[in-house]
């Protein structure tokens, strides 16, 4: 009973936060509410027995997406000559839904309510008991090389999806780079406390990432979670004013960005040559291969996320080399 009450509250809380985030008049507030929404989502994942997803959501969905959104908002405020510092500095001219008669808005709401009802009916009509592929996964878990079923699916059973996933991340960086960067902004002085905080937390983050990567084989965790924690450490360092040396922004950066994708491609070619089967690991070696893939993927994910943040927040562009180490 108590559980039902909690789940119902959480469900309504999610809907309410989403509504407020999407419709509050102030963009800063909207983003903060969205971050809170992400944290509640993480709670929902825990309730749904999906700790791996909860970790990914907390680190990426709420953490890094939130950082990206706030950084973009700050840039936007600076660009459109608004007061950046104020919490209520983003009165949006079109905060209120634009144009459209009462009739068309009513029609839209009617349509949307109908679609919720339709989807609810469809979901309700699904069989109330189904195991999906869990039996298949359990049956082959021993051959996968890892003990955590989610990691087994991500890196082995459906490792091909993850390979394309690494390409999507790389594409995001290429896409952002191809926009050519924004105007560089003068760097603001950073609070001493923030520097201390990041200096203290960075090793902790690295430790946590290594731990997540290592336990990912048998417990919740893995490359995506570890990579996003490491990426968050990068974001924190960037926030506290740290800038990588120009030399690092050249091919060491490119190597780090492509490490995960490259590892997948090489392994794909190798397995195709040796096993005649794309991405099929020999059972005895599977554990080690997955760990290797995950380690390289972690580096790539972390660097990708940090570079995306840098591009959105400070107008970093490809090969700009303008940000020196302080």
């Amino acid at each position, binding site marked *: 009973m108590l559980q039902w009450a909690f*789940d119902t509250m959480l469900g309504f809380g999610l809907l309410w936060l989403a509504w407020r985030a*999407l419709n509050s008049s102030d963009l800063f507030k909207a983003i903060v509410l969205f971050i809170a929404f992400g944290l509640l989502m993480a709670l929902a994942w825990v309730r749904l027995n*999906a700790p791996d*997803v909860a970790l990914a959501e907390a680190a990426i969905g709420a953490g890094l997406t939130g950082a990206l959104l706030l950084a973009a908002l700050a840039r936007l405020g600076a*660009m459109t000559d608004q007061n950046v510092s104020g919490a209520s500095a983003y009165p949006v001219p079109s905060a209120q839904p*634009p144009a*459209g008669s009462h009739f068309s808005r009513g029609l839209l709401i009617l349509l949307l309510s109908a679609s919720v009802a339709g989807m609810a009916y469809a979901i309700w009509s699904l069989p109330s008991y189904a195991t999906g592929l869990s039996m298949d996964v359990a049956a082959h878990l021993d051959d996968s090389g890892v003990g955590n079923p989610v990691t087994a699916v991500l890196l082995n059973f459906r490792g091909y999806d993850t390979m394309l996933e690494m390409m999507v991340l790389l594409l995001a960086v290429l896409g952002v780079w191809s926009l050519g960067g924004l105007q560089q902004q003068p760097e603001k002085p950073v609070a001493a406390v923030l520097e201390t905080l990041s200096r203290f937390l960075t090793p902790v983050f690295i430790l946590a990432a290594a731990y997540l990567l290592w336990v990912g084989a048998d417990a919740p965790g893995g490359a995506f979670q570890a990579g996003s924690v490491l990426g968050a450490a990068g974001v924190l360092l960037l926030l506290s004013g740290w800038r990588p040396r120009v030399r690092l922004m050249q091919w060491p950066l490119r190597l780090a960005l492509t490490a995960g994708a490259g590892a997948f491609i090489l392994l794909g070619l190798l397995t195709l040559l040796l096993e005649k089967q794309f991405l099929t690991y020999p059972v005895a070696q599977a554990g080690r291969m997955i760990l290797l893939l995950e380690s390289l993927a972690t580096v790539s994910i972390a660097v990708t996320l940090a570079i995306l943040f840098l591009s959105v927040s400070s107008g970093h562009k490809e090969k700009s080399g303008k940000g020196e180490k302080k």
Partner: protein
Amino acid sequence: MTNAFLYALAGSGLFVLGLHALVMHAHVLRKILAINVMGSGVFLILVALARRSGETTTDPVPHAMVITGIVVAVSATALALALMLKLAEKSGQAVLPDKHGD
């Protein structure tokens, strides 16, 4: 009957709330938030329904799919934000221009 359906219903609610905001708001940042909320709704449905088999065994395949989806979402969000900033830099505002002046 488990809480699976409850969360799946919340997920479909989120999807539609996001869709509403995506259509109604002109500001690109809000549209990006709306897309993210819609994505969360889809993920919630995907994972919630995996719990129909009960408390102990859950289907890990949708979990892996959602982790994949979260990473796609953050990549797309980053690209969208960069595009929005570039658009704002050029046009002075972060709203979609009229279709095209011909």
